[in-house]
Structure formats: C-alpha cells, structure tokens
C-alpha cells in the first residue's frame, strides 16, 4: 500500500549532515548500504546494477557495499578512494552522508568529510573493541568540532548479541572519551549485515532499551549547533545594479556566519571600525526583519562607508580577534611536506591573504593523542599545531566557538592546490 507523499511535511524537514568513519572490514559500506536500502532510498535500477556486479564477481549474496562504489578504479580495486556524498530522507529529516574511506589517505578524507558534519558515526567491531582506529576517528571528529558522536558497536551477530560485550566496549569508550571534548555521545549495538537496530529494532537484543541508529539520527537536537551568540557577517560580494530602476542601490551580499542581525541594529564594519545601522535585510523580493546562520542575504546600511569583499559586519560589544598572528591546528593534505618558513596563500571566510608558517609547535599522534615537540616535519595526513603570520589582519574566532570564522585553508602558490587546512586555536 502506498502512503500518499506529503509535500507539506517535506517542506518542514531539517537537514542533518553526518560522516561515517570506518576502516577496512568494519562494515561501513554495508551499514550505509543498509541505511539506504532500509529507508527505501535505493531504486530498482541501482539494485539491479549491484546484483549484476555481485554476480560478476562471484559473490553469493547481493553485496550492499557495492552501492557505495563510485569510480571505475574503486570498483576494479574493491576500495574507496575519495569522499563520496550520499543522500536519503525519512519523513522527519533529510540526510547527507559524507562517506569517507578508511585506508587510503584516511586523515585527509576524514577531515574533509567531518568539516561540514553535524554528527559522526563511529563503527567499532564488537569482536575487537576500542582500537587505535576508534581513537583516531573519534579524535578527528572532536578536532573538527562535530558535536554529536554515534558509536555503533557493529557485528553484534558475531558475539552472540551479548549485552556483556556491548557494556564492556561502551565503558571502554567512555573512559577514553574523557580525553576528547565530545559533548553528546550515543551508543547503539547493531548488526549492519542483518539490519539489527539499524532501521528496525532488533529482536535479538531485547536487553537494549535505546533507539535504533535511524531513530538517533532522526532525533538528535541540532538546533543548538549553529552559533547564535556572536554576530558575524563576512561581506562576500557587493551588489550595485546602477540600473534605471535601482540607480543608488548598494547591497552587501553574504552569508550569516554567526549570531542574529536585525533591521535597525547598530553594527560595526571591520576592519575599518566604522559604526553604522542596518537599513534593510534583502532577500530577492522580500525585506526581512532578521537573519541568522546559515542564511545568505543582502544587507544595506545607512552610511556611506568604503566596504569590499573580505570585510566583516559585527557588533560593538562582541568583536572577533583582529590579528596577523594566528595559532592553528593544521591537517596537512599534500604529498609535499609543510615548509617551515614557507609562504602560502591563505583563504579565511571571504578574505584572501598570504601567510608564512613561522613555527611548528608540536605534532599530534592521531592514534594516541600524544604530542611530539621534537619532530617538526609535517607530512601528508599529519596534524600539527603551527603558528603563522599573515600579510593582512584576519578577523577570527576560535574554531571551537565558530566553525566558519575559525577555519582557514592553505594553498601552494606554485600548484594552486589546497595543501593544508587549519582550525584557529587562538589569535593575538
């Protein structure tokens, strides 16, 4: 029986972005295949293609993991190379999965997937418990300020659905997680292969009182994930039609990266430090009373101030740091190691500057969180705390406080490649 699809419900859905971290053989692809399949997001022609591919490879069962294989090289080698994005929806939420591979360049890919995620699913093989990989995945999720961790203890079917095993791993993780600053941690025992507690509650684990993985994904509170405290509006583009209908229109287009801006609010334009008042917040043919993250709007102000891309609207009693000296955690994304005292192009919000890396303060071992202050050679997939100096002041907040105004990327000026990504710790 077909339920009638509700457009009204669809228009009121929230968007949840999550990442899945996993290693070889931990069942990550199977879990994603299961979520897509059980939420009826797989179409017949896709399923047919997977069936054909499974038979060609001589697999006995239809391998749901094949649903997530994208590129020819991946199918040939049976591995995943790059972050892939998947989509599904339930009547409550629309989901975007950043599916990150576990082995090749794991840190680079995990960091990429985590950068836009509200939640992270971390898979633990029930037979192995908390491993070095669990530690690495959780650390990266917490470094990237993912607020919600969902720890899936998988392959429960291989430990006879034992409550004791589940409780032991859960406690092990709780002890370990004190080293992280994860705020909201959920645990769920599952079998991705058989579907237990993924979308449907398990009949094999009556002792488990919590919700299924899907229930957790549908109900975790993401309202408080956006920064509503610190008003930040980086100017992205200046709109000046100079047309007969709008001869004097001058609007500042951009996205609200923090706080709430209202019509009539007194604001400060940085770095000019000029005060003015919001005359109007425009969105196409509408004039809005207020704007909040992550809205893209156009703001008009009362006074005539010279403003261009890269400037920022803030409020008087709540200023970002204005500085050329920044300490940041950097993840290195390039085969060519970080050059101490090397110069790089740097992008932060809508601003482009150049910078020099002045010092590597310490490197972090992502497997055990140990800091290494001796070795300053930062190579692909490594994470280090560095200090850098920019050619012009940046308007920053600590990444912990604001993911938008606290993040930056480093670009090699010879190749134009993005070679490093940084999270601001402090600026002086």
């Amino acid at each position: 029986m077909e339920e009638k699809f509700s457009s009204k419900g669809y228009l009121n859905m929230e968007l949840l972005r999550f990442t899945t971290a996993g290693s070889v053989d931990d069942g990550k692809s199977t879990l994603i295949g299961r979520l897509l399949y059980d939420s009826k997001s797989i179409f017949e022609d896709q399923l047919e293609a997977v069936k054909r591919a499974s038979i060609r490879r001589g697999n006995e069962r239809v391998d749901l993991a094949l649903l997530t294989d994208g590129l020819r090289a991946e199918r040939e080698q049976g591995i995943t190379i790059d972050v892939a994005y998947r989509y599904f929806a339930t009547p409550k939420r629309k989901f975007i999965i950043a599916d990150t591979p576990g082995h090749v360049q794991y840190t680079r890919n995990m960091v990429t997937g985590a950068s836009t995620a509200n939640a992270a699913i971390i898979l633990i093989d029930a037979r192995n418990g908390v491993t070095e990989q669990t530690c690495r995945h959780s650390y990266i999720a917490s470094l990237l300020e993912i607020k919600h961790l969902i720890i899936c203890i998988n392959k429960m079917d291989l430990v006879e659905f034992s409550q004791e095993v589940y409780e032991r791993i859960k406690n092990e993780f709780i002890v370990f997680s004190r080293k992280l600053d994860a705020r909201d941690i959920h645990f769920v025992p599952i079998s991705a292969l058989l579907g237990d507690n993924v979308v449907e509650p398990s009949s094999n684990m009556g002792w488990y009182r919590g919700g299924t993985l899907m229930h957790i994904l549908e109900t975790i509170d993401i309202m408080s994930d956006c920064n509503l405290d610190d008003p930040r509006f980086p100017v992205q583009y200046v709109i000046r039609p100079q047309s007969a209908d709008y001869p004097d229109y001058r609007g500042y287009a951009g996205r609200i990266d923090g706080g709430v801006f209202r019509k009539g609010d007194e604001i400060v334009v940085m770095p000019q430090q000029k005060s003015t008042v919001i005359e109007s917040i425009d969105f196409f043919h509408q004039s809005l009373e207020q704007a909040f993250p992550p809205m893209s709007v156009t703001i008009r102000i009362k006074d005539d101030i010279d403003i261009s891309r890269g400037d920022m609207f803030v409020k008087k009693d709540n200023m970002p740091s204005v500085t050329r000296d920044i300490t940041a955690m950097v993840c290195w994304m390039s085969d060519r190691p970080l050059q101490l005292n090397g110069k790089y192009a740097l992008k932060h919000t809508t601003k482009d500057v150049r910078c020099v890396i002045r010092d590597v303060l310490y490197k972090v071992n992502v497997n055990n969180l140990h800091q290494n202050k001796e070795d300053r050679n930062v190579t692909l997939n490594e994470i280090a705390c560095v200090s850098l100096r920019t050619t012009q002041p940046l308007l920053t907040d600590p990444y912990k406080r604001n993911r938008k105004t606290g993040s930056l990327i480093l670009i090699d000026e010879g190749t134009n490649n993005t070679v490093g990504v940084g999270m601001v710790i402090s600026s002086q």
Partner: protein
Amino acid sequence: MKKYHLNHLRELESESIYVMREVAAQFERPCLLFSGGKDSIVLVHLARKAFHPSLIPFPLLHIDTGHNFQEALDFRDGLVKKIGARLVVGSVQESIDKGRVVEETGYSASRNVLQTTTLLDTIAEFKFDAAIGGGRRDEEKARAKERFFSHRDEFGQWDPKNQRPELWNIFNGKKHIGEHFRVFPISNWTEMDIWQYIYMENIELPSLYYTHTREVFNRDGVWLAYAPFMKLKPNEKVEMKTVRCRTVGDITCTGLSLSTANSLEEIIQEIAATRVTERGSRYDDLRSEAAMEDRKREGYF
C-alpha cells in the same frame, strides 16, 4: 516553525546562493550552462536570487546539439528575454561542419558525446574561466565524488583521483592560465528537492515536463520521442502515447515516462512512488557501467 530554524530546502538554497556569489567574486569570466532542463532552470532562479536587484552578472551558455525539443528552445528564448540575460549558443552542427567532430552513425547515433568538443571549444573561444553546471551528486555514482569547485586542466579534463580537498565552505578557485573550473551549486540537492523547490517557488518549466501526447517508439525498454532524423530499427514502430519528460536533454537520449501528471503536485506524487532513478531512463548512461565517469573525464558537463 522554531525561531532560528531554516528548513532543509532553504538551507540548500542558501548554500547554492553562497556558491553562486563565490563564482562571481572569484572568477573573471564565468558562465552558466543552460540546457532548458529543470536543474538548469533552478540554477537560473538561484542566480537571480543571488544577485537581485542586479541582473545575473554572467551569460547563459547553451550547447545546442541541433537535436533539441522545440519546446525547450522556445522556453530558453522566453526565459532569457524575461530576465534580461545574455545568451551564448555553442552549436554541435557547426562543430560537425567545421570538421571538429564526426557525426555518429547507426541506430543509436547521438550527438551527446560530440557536445563535449563543442562545449570545450566554446569555453576556449569566450575565455570562460568558470562554467556553472546543474550536476547533482545524487544523480550518478561518478558525480557523488564531485566537488562544488571542480578543477579542469588545460585539456578540460577531470582527474577524479586527484581532486582538491574541499572543506567547510571555503572554495579554492585558483588556477593557471588556460585552465577552468566547473562549479556545481546544487551538488547537495536530490531530484525530490528540485521538484519541491520548483513547487515552493512556483518556477515555470517547459511544457515537456507535463503530460502531453507525442509520437514515440520503444527501444530496449526506453520510450524515446520520434524525430525525422532518427533511424528506426526494423522492429520499432512509431505510436502515439501520453507521456512526459522526467529529464530533458537531447531528443535522441531522453527517455519519456508514460504519465498523465499535469501539475507539480501530481509530478511530485509520481516521483515519490517511482522505483527507478532519473538517469535510469537516460539512454546515454546505459552504454556502460562507467559511462558518466568516462565522459566527465573528457570534459563533459
């Protein structure tokens, strides 16, 4: 509705507008690839919103295979006039006449692949440094790994194994002379999101998307529109059917669905109930398992 809450369509809309504005800020000569299909129509709508009350600060580029539905061409011309946009047309027929490409022959002859040469030639001729496209990651497995800002080398090629990392919403559009970018503002939208947005915003579409009667024939289970330049196999016969387009592309490869859906509400119900992907009815994608990836590597949309 809670106080500081955007529903998912508004959040996607905001993300796409942000990307549009980044293109206008970071590139000197962008263009927007316009096919007359619903995704590119939504792109145009988002571009209007991004720059209002200015006109869209870049031209629309249409690659004309010469095998278009007349309804799509009429719609294109009407839209361009209505919004005061500049239109650039790259013609596959001209590429054939100049000897840049050779027309395919045989029953499944299509100009779909030839478009790539015309597209790259037009990008070079007008020195476009960014081409905004309506590709979505949910469409096809090779597209699932596409960036918002996707770098193309001087040959217009995509190297899927060597893509730039893309984090947060910081987009790196730096490039060398002769290279360009493809930019996909609606990467995170699904087919249903597009339809719901068209419904919510009341966006006008070509009549092809609604039910109509047309001369069609069936090839390998796909209903194709009949046009005089198409060669029929001996077992194929032209008949009249009540159909609509789920996607709109070149006539030779756009599969039609048998449908009586005559309003956006009906189309949305139909899509909610359907069990086949959009591209499942695209004849161009049925050629091989990696058909899309191969075309993309060479510079396809």
